């Protein structure tokens, strides 16, 4: 893992990895969405609104995957002091927050014709809204920590601890429909098992793969941006002092 600790080596790799993830990611995402919208049959209960599945589910999965990335990177930062781990965690926060917001918006749109309401304060929806607020807090804290680090402080550890503590919400979101009564359906896909018919499952899985590749590309783009900002700041500081 420490082989990627060198920012120069990472930047060399990121230069070709970014288009390699982004182009197939966009093609797969849009292709799978078109496949689902055009060819998946209407559900006998939900009608054509079942097609919202193909955009809603990948967004929700990546909202949770974003915080999982933050948690794993925070462990790497705190335990191994990996120099790029904090940057990776910060880079995952914005796409994670965007996918969480998109998951909430598309879920709300799906809820209106299916449940008869845009929103209910049940376990699943509320814990997912809490995830969005955790992202806002993390992004604000990480920005403050970067300014603090520029002045020689060590607030980056506080951000990493917040990233770890916030991860407690991920299993709560996952199990919420099992623990509490909810309008939201129970999990349809678990490890090695699916209650979804293949006509819905394949475009969903392809779309999820495409969205994941786009997520990876955005994380790499934001890591390059953060590294460039740190390098610029360091050079300007050296010039000012020297």
């Amino acid at each position: 893992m420490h082989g990627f600790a060198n920012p120069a080596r990472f930047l060399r790799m990121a230069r070709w990895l970014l288009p390699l993830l982004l182009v197939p990611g966009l093609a797969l995402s849009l292709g799978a969405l078109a496949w689902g919208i055009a060819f998946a049959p209407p559900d006998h209960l939900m009608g054509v609104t079942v097609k919202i599945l193909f955009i809603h589910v990948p967004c929700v999965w990546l909202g949770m995957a974003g915080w999982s990335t933050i948690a794993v990177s925070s462990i790497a930062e705190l335990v191994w002091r990996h120099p790029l781990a904090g940057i990776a965690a910060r880079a995952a926060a914005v796409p994670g927050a965007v996918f969480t917001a998109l998951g909430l918006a598309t879920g709300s749109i799906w809820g209106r014709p299916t449940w008869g309401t845009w929103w209910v304060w049940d376990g699943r929806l509320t814990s997912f809204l809490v995830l969005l607020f955790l992202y806002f807090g993390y992004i604000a804290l990480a920005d403050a920590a970067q300014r603090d680090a520029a002045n020689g402080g060590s607030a980056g550890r506080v951000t990493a601890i917040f990233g770890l503590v916030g991860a407690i919400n991920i299993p709560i979101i996952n199990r919420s429909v099992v623990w509490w009564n909810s309008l939201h359906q129970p999990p349809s896909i678990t490890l090695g098992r699916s209650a979804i018919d293949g006509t819905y499952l394949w475009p969903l899985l392809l779309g999820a793969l495409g969205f994941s590749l786009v997520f990876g590309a955005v994380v790499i783009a934001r890591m390059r941006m953060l590294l460039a900002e740190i390098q610029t700041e360091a050079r300007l500081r050296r010039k000012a002092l020297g």
Partner: protein
Amino acid sequence: MHERLDQWDYVWAALAIGVVGMLAMVGWSLIAMIRAERRRDKVRRK
């Protein structure tokens, strides 16, 4: 009172928000990256 819902309206609305949101995030991240790297290169050259 019964309201008649056209289910397709909801499908298109969800699709538009999802796709436009994702593409906006990709575009914003790429532009921010290019700007930051240009600024770094400019500072290096000075």
